[in-house]
């Protein structure tokens, strides 16, 4: 793990895993994966493996958090101890607390919160394996889980990062690129509303590079958005096929 590659992009312009600068990692999405949850989704984004489950709208706990004019969204982003190279303590870290907050704030604009006063919607995210870009993959999965739960939404939320490695702006950084690269810019988007609901950055970028990175990330978001909608439809295709089979039996 300690042998750092000298260059993150080779002479042909290809990255460590053979991708081009503006190429996404393979993404696999599945909706309705947790039987007990009101809504759920699973994402594999590169080597990231993440589950999201939604419970609610349900009774507010503790009660004093209840709001009279809208629902309260709670979000917990959590990494499994075995999800990273060195075991992560299962207690929530400061990073996880911050990410839970920004992920919640990226989802809230999509939900008609005012439809369910005095209730709570819980969004639970478990990162089973991490490989850079977990917050983005988590948002993509959590939005699907919310949609799957049937809560009315303005749009899906989809997220993707761009960044800089070896002075080149690239899409969708994996772990090594994130750690050794120059900057990481995660972005979440509601594509139909052209609304950015999450934006963070660390590293160093000029203003030109920053604009380029944001536009590249937005483009990545739109690509994943198509897959998100397909995954949502697929659940109902599966259900209708199952019922057809049952009818034939």
């Amino acid at each position, binding site marked *: 793990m300690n042998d750092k590659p000298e260059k993150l992009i080779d002479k042909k312009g290809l990255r460590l895993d053979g991708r081009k600068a503006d190429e996404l990692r393979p993404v696999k999405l599945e909706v309705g994966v947790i039987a007990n949850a009101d809504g759920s989704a699973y994402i594999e984004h590169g080597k990231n493996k993440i589950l999201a489950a939604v419970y609610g709208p349900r009774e507010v706990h503790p009660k004093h958090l209840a709001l009279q004019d809208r629902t309260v969204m709670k979000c917990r982003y959590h990494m499994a101890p075995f999800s990273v190279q060195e075991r992560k303590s299962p207690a929530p870290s400061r990073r996880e607390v911050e990410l839970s907050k*920004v992920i919640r704030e990226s989802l809230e604009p999509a939900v008609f919160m005012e439809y369910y006063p005095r209730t709570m919607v819980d969004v639970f995210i478990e990162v089973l394996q991490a490989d850079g870009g977990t917050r983005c993959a988590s948002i993509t999965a959590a939005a699907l889980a919310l949609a799957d739960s049937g809560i009315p939404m303005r749009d899906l939320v989809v997220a993707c990062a761009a960044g800089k490695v070896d002075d080149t702006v690239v899409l969708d950084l994996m772990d090594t690129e994130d750690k050794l690269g120059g900057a990481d810019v995660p972005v979440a988007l509601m594509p139909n509303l052209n609304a950015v609901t999450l934006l963070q950055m660390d590293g160093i*970028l000029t203003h030109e590079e920053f604009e380029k990175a944001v536009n590249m990330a937005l483009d990545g978001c739109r690509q994943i958005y198509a897959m998100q909608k397909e995954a949502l439809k697929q659940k109902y295709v599966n259900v209708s096929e199952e019922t057809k089979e049952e009818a034939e039996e």
Partner: protein
Amino acid sequence: MTAIITRVKKKQLSDLMAQDKRADGRGLKDYREMKIEQGIIERAEGSARVLLGKTEVVVGTKIEMGEPFSDTPNEGVLTVNAELTPIASPEFEAGPPDEMSIELARIVDRGIRESKAINVEKLVIEPGKKVFVVFVDIYVLNHDGNLIDASALAAVSALLNTKMANYEIKDGEVHLKPGYEQLPIRKHPITVTVAKIEDKLVVDPQLEEELVMDARITFAIDDDENICAIQKGGSGYFEPNEIFEAAKIAKAKAKEMRKKLNW
């Protein structure tokens, strides 16, 4: 932690905003009056108090010896913590840090860390074993909005004012010597927060404005006018062109402040 604002007040603020005006008479791109005092806590290795209008933040720094992280054996350690003291607002409660104070500390941390403001290589006593650990503790004393910019300003001011002990190594042991050295600072990140209210972008939102804003976005800008950290916050959204506009505002405000501060 959800403060309440009356509908009348909310309407008043948004009506003003529609005419490019603000409740306290400022322009949309104006900061409140800013005051910085350094070295106010003698016991701390470095300290600063920042007043941004009625928002008041004190930062104290302490330096201790400790171990470096295993992946950065040749670098000293920076630790940033924020306390939203119950003194500062009727909304704040004593207790372990909540998500608001953790986010605040991590935004300030990112600005300092990513701009490479502290020359951490110079904080190494024995590579892989012993380094100086710089603790930056943010103390919010009065909350009237824009804690992020006030805290970041106070943190960098305190670091500029921080002294570290002289030492020598004798027989493999570290001995402190009399006298002090300045903490090696090479960059001065400036943090600018832009809030979106009624589709208008304003800088330095005060508390009332934070309660009605859609969302905020914070940029840390380094000495070479590069962006070194960003955080969007709040349960609303920005359109991409609003983000690029906010970045331009942040760049211009940072330049203006840098000149004033002589950083």
